[in-house]
C-alpha cells in the first residue's frame, strides 16, 4: 500500500510499504477513506519528539471501512463493513485508566511502556503514528491501518454525515472540546485561546457551545484570526499588540477567567529576544519545549482562574512562572485528549448542527501529495489551516 512515512528531520516521504495484518486477536484492518495532517505531526517532522525512526508510517487522524476483524473482536461492537472514525489514543477498555475514562493514559496499549515511563515517570497509551515512545504503531496517513482493541475505540458512523463532517472526531475536535471542558466554563466567563490553528478553533467553538460570554483568539496569522472572527470570536494579533494589555482592555482589567494553550512546545513569541532565548536553548537541547504561550496564559489569567493546556509538550521547559501560578491561585489542567470519552456526545452535537468541524478545512489533497501538504501546513502557505488527505 501507499503510506506517508517519516524520513528523518524535516522530511516525509510517501512510499510503498506492506499491507497491515492482524497481529492481536482484537485487531481490525480499516481501509482508510479520509485522513488528515495534525499540528502535532509537525512536532514529529521538526524533530522535537524522540524515538521516531526512518520509515515510521505517520498519521493519527483517520477513518474508513472495516475490511477485516480479528477472532477476538466482539461482533456486537464491530463488524466487517462498518464505517468508523478511529480515535488516536489506543485504549484497552479494561485497565484502571480506561475504567476512569483516562483513555490516553491506558496502561496496556503501549508495548514500549518501559521507555515512556523513563521519560514521563509513568507510561502513556499507545498512539497511532506518533513515535516509538507511544508504542511504535503504524499510523493512518496510508491506504490501510491496523487498529488494535478495535471493539473499544472506533466510533461507528451510521448516519449519512460526510467524511469531512466526522473525521475530526478522531482527535482535534475532542481535543479542542476537552480544552474547553477542563475550564469549567460559567456563563460570565471570558475565555482566551492561544493558537488559532484547527485545535484552537475547535476549543473556541467548544467554549462558546459550553456557554462562555466571550471567546478571544490569540495568534499572529491574519488568515487564522479572520477564520476565528468569522466564527464569532474576538481576534488578538500578538505581533501587533501587547497581548496582556489587550486582554486587560477586553476584560475590564480582570484578565480572562479561563485560558487555553492550544500551541504547545513550538511557540513563537512577539518579542524577538525572548523567542531567541528559548529557540537557542531548544536547539542545543537545554530545554526541549518553547513555552511562550503557556507562560503568557499563566501571567494573563485572572486570579483563581483556570489554565487549560491542550498544546503538546514533550519534555522539559524552563522559566515556568510558578510564582504567578501559586500566588494567584490558578488551576492548571491538561492531558492528551481522552478521545473515546467525547466521540459520541460530539457526534450528536455535529448532527444537531451545534458544531461544524468542516469550517477549518482549507486543503484537500491526494495521499501521494502528503509532502506538499506538510509544507503548506508547516509554512502556513496559501492560508493553510487544515489538510485532509484522500488515500
Amino acid at each position, binding site marked *: *500500500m501507499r*503510506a506517508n*512515512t517519516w524520513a528523518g528531520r524535516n522530511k516525509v516521504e510517501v512510499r510503498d*510499504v*506492506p*499491507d*497491515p*495484518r492482524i*497481529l*492481536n*486477536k*482484537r485487531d481490525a484492518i480499516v481501509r482508510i477513506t479520509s485522513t488528515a495532517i495534525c499540528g502535532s505531526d509537525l512536532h514529529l517532522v521538526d524533530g522535537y519528539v524522540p524515538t521516531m*525512526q*526512518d*520509515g*515510521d*508510517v505517520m498519521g493519527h487522524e483517520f477513518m474508513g471501512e472495516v475490511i477485516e476483524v480479528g477472532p*477476538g473482536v466482539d461482533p456486537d461492537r464491530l463488524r466487517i463493513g462498518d464505517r468508523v472514525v478511529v480515535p488516536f489514543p489506543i485504549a*484497552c477498555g*479494561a*485497565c*484502571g485508566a480506561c*475504567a476512569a475514562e483516562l483513555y490516553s493514559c491506558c*496502561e*496496556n*496499549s*503501549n*508495548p*514500549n*511502556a*518501559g*521507555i515512556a*515511563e523513563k521519560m514521563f515517570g509513568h507510561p502513556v497509551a*499507545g498512539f497511532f*503514528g506518533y513515535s*516509538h515512545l507511544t*508504542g*511504535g*504503531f*503504524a*499510523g493512518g496517513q496510508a491506504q490501510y491501518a*491496523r487498529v*488494535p*482493541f478495535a471493539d473499544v475505540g472506533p466510533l461507528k458512523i451510521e448516519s449519512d454525515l460526510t467524511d469531512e463532517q466526522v473525521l475530526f472526531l478522531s482527535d482535534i475536535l475532542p481535543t479542542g472540546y476537552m480544552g474547553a471542558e477542563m475550564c469549567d466554563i460559567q456563563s460570565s466567563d471570558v475565555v482566551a485561546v492561544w493558537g488559532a490553528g484547527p485545535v484552537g478553533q475547535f476549543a473556541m467553538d467548544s467554549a462558546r457551545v459550553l456557554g462562555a460570554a466571550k471567546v478571544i483568539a490569540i495568534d499572529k496569522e491574519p488568515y487564522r484570526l479572520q477564520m476565528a472572527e468569522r466564527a464569532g470570536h474576538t481576534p488578538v494579533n500578538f505581533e501587533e499588540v501587547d497581548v496582556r494589555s489587550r486582554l486587560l482592555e477586553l476584560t475590564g482589567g480582570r484578565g480572562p477567567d479561563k485560558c487555553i494553550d492550544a500551541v504547545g512546545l513550538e511557540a513563537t513569541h512577539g518579542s524577538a529576544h525572548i523567542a531567541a532565548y528559548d529557540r537557542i536553548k531548544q536547539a542545543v537541547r537545554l530545554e526541549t519545549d518553547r513555552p511562550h504561550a503557556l507562560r503568557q496564559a499563566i501571567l494573563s489569567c485572572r486570579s483563581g482562574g483556570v489554565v487549560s493546556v491542550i498544546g503538546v509538550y514533550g519534555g522539559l521547559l524552563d522559566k515556568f512562572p510558578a510564582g504567578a501560578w501559586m500566588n494567584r491561585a490558578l488551576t492548571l489542567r491538561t492531558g492528551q485528549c481522552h478521545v473515546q470519552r467525547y466521540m459520541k456526545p460530539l457526534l450528536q452535537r455535529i448532527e444537531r448542527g451545534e458544531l461544524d468541524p468542516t469550517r477549518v478545512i482549507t486543503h484537500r489533497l491526494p495521499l501521494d501529495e502528503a509532502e506538499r501538504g506538510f509544507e503548506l501546513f508547516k509554512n502556513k502557505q496559501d492560508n493553510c489551516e487544515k489538510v485532509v488527505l484522500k488515500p
Partner: protein
Amino acid sequence: MELTATTTIRKPVPEVYAFWRDFENLPTFMAHLDEVRATGDRTSHWVAGAPFGKDVEWDAEIVDEALSEKIVWRSIGNADVPNTGTVRFMPAPDGVSTEVQVVLVYDIPGGTVGKAIAKYFGEEPHQQLDDDLRRLKQVLETGEVVRSDGAPWGKRARKEFPQRPAQPLSDSELVNGADE
C-alpha cells in the same frame, strides 16, 4: 541478584493468584522463560530461553503458599542458576483490583551462563521484571500480550531497541518472526 517489581491488575485476587499458581502460565509473560512444566502439585521443571544461554533448565518446588495471598518457590537439585521467587497478592484500595509484588533472587554463577545472564539483565535488571509484570497485566486484563508494528513480537520487544520501523510487516518478516 535480587529483583523486585510490583503492579496493579484490575482483576480479583483469586483470579490473579490462580493464574500465577499455574506455573505453566509464566512463560506467556516472563521474557526469559521458554517453558515451565508441572511435574507434581508443588514441583515443576523450568526451561530458560536464549537470554539465559541455551539449555539452562532446572527443577523447582513450592516451599510456602497461602491461598490468594502468596506463593514462594525455589530451585532444587543442581540448578545452573539457583534461584528463589516470592509473589504476594493483595486487594487494592479500589475494591476491584489486585496488587502483585514479586521478588526474584538469582545466585549468578561464573562462566558462560553467568555472562549471558549479566548481559541479559544489563545495567537495569529491574526493567526486565517490570516489563514482565506489564505483560502479566496485559494478559490478564486484555487476554494477550499487546503488539505494535515497531514491537511486533510480544515479550521479545524490549531487546529490540531501536526497533523495526512502525510500518506493517512484510510476509517474510511475519514468517521468520513466527518461527523464532
